[in-house]
């Protein structure tokens, strides 16, 4: 008997008024693999992630996790996410941001335990222990991304989503974040979905790549195949050409 994919999307559709963002998206992510979804701005990459998270309700289609219909509470229990802008809580110090989940509920960690956990995770993403006691507003963009990454891995989750992990970072910092993501995902054996426009992220992070265009999966395959896919849409996107089948706004 074959092992079901960690996450399966079957014929997912979502429209906002007359704007059909997702038309018929079917996709599978195998356990322990890293899928990167690429596509132009406004092609529905973020909506796709929000459908899986239950923040947006799809109009049609199924989402399966481990072969069973998505149970949002169970799914989020073993899940981490790095947001595009970090989405760190301004009012809380860094250590509390990282150990936020562990400070909730009956089995909550003490303040000292939470700080120790946060410092351990900060070290993993290359930040000094002192950072734990700063507030997010005191950190640079790159540091905020790293703290966001530390928060995403704080519970060693089975599934991690990365939303535009390198947006707004200089190329060197983007490279550092890409390497960190790859290392952590491999080390933890986590299943991950990343959405990005950044081809350096795709090459550094992905096992599999899916290209979303016009509300559908235009191309899906191994990262090693993207340079000779023969798909004109994918070719135009990865080479950043203005001319081609994808219409650009001039």
């Amino acid at each position, binding site marked *: 008997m074959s092992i079901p994919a960690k996450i399966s999307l079957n014929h997912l559709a979502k429209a906002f008024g007359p704007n059909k963002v997702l038309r018929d998206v079917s996709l599978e992510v195998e356990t322990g693999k890293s899928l990167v979804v690429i596509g132009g701005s406004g092609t529905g990459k973020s909506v796709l992630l*929000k459908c899986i*998270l*239950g*923040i947006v309700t799809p109009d049609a289609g199924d989402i399966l996790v481990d072969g069973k219909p998505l149970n949002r*509470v169970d799914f*989020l*229990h073993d*899940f*981490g*996410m790095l*947001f*595009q*802008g970090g*989405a*760190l*809580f*301004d009012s809380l110090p860094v250590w509390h941001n990282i150990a*936020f*989940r562990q400070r*909730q*509920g009956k089995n909550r960690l003490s303040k000292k335990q939470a700080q120790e956990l946060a410092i351990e995770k900060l070290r993993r993403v290359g930040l000094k222990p002192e950072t734990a006691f700063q507030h997010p507003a005191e950190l640079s963009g790159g540091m905020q991304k790293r703290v966001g990454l530390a*928060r995403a891995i704080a519970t060693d989750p089975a599934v991690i989503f990365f939303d535009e992990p390198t947006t707004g970072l200089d190329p060197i910092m983007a490279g550092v974040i890409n390497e960190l993501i790859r290392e952590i995902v491999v080390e933890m054996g986590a299943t991950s979905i990343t959405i990005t426009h950044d081809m350096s992220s795709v090459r550094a992070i992905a096992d599999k790549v899916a290209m979303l265009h016009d509300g559908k999966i235009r191309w899906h395959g191994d990262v090693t195949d993207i340079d000779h896919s023969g798909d004109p849409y994918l070719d135009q996107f990865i080479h950043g050409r203005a001319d081609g089948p994808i219409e650009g706004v001039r």
Partner: protein
Amino acid sequence: MQAITLINGFLASIGRSTLAMLAAIGRLAIFTAASVSHIFRPPFYPVELAQQLLRIGYFSLPVVGLTTLFTGGALALQIYAGGARFNAESVVPSIVAIGMVRELGPVLAGLMVAGRVGASIAAEIGTMRVTEQIDALTTLSTNPIKYLVVPRVLAATLAMPVLVLIGNIIGVMGGYLVGVYRLDFNSAAYISNTVDFLEIGDVTSGLIKAAVFGFIVAVMGCYHGFNSGRGAQGVGQATTNAVVSASILILASNYLLTELLFTA
């Protein structure tokens, strides 16, 4: 034919506006019901509640205190000037006390808190919406209504009566200071008149109003923050909407509560 088209267009625009208004009322009712229902269901966030009590209650004391102090003083001068027209200057202490406790204390405190706290809640939650912090809460298995809305609504509902009680005392004191040091009332007689005319029902009705106004301010701030549009303009609009809607609802509910408490 053209006239019929114009009338149809006019009626259609009225219909659209009415439907949009009813939809907005429906959304607000659902949001309020969800907020109230979560007050009684765990998990609870006592630390957040304590922080909000401090921010909404304690830090609003100066603005409420100053507002009621000057209003009490002005009220004493007005009543004295008006009362002098029919030789009724002696009613100043009792009217100041009843006016402050029943009406001006709760309403003015409600409006000042709507400006200070309602705007702050809408801006904070609106910014959290725009910067995806509310989505982040969801991904961290935390219900944003429970974590963000319930502590604010509960804190405002609990803190407002205390604020108004203190505001009432300061307002009556404002009247006393003007009465004794400006209008030459006898100090003991002023205090005696104030205490004799004031009934416990006057005080409790004002405190009930205060609790309702606190609830309105927090719910409107949270609702508009949660539904904030994108960018700085969206958050700015949410803040304005929170203050305007809370102020109007405070004045409207004040009339309804007065009908209910004093004429029923």
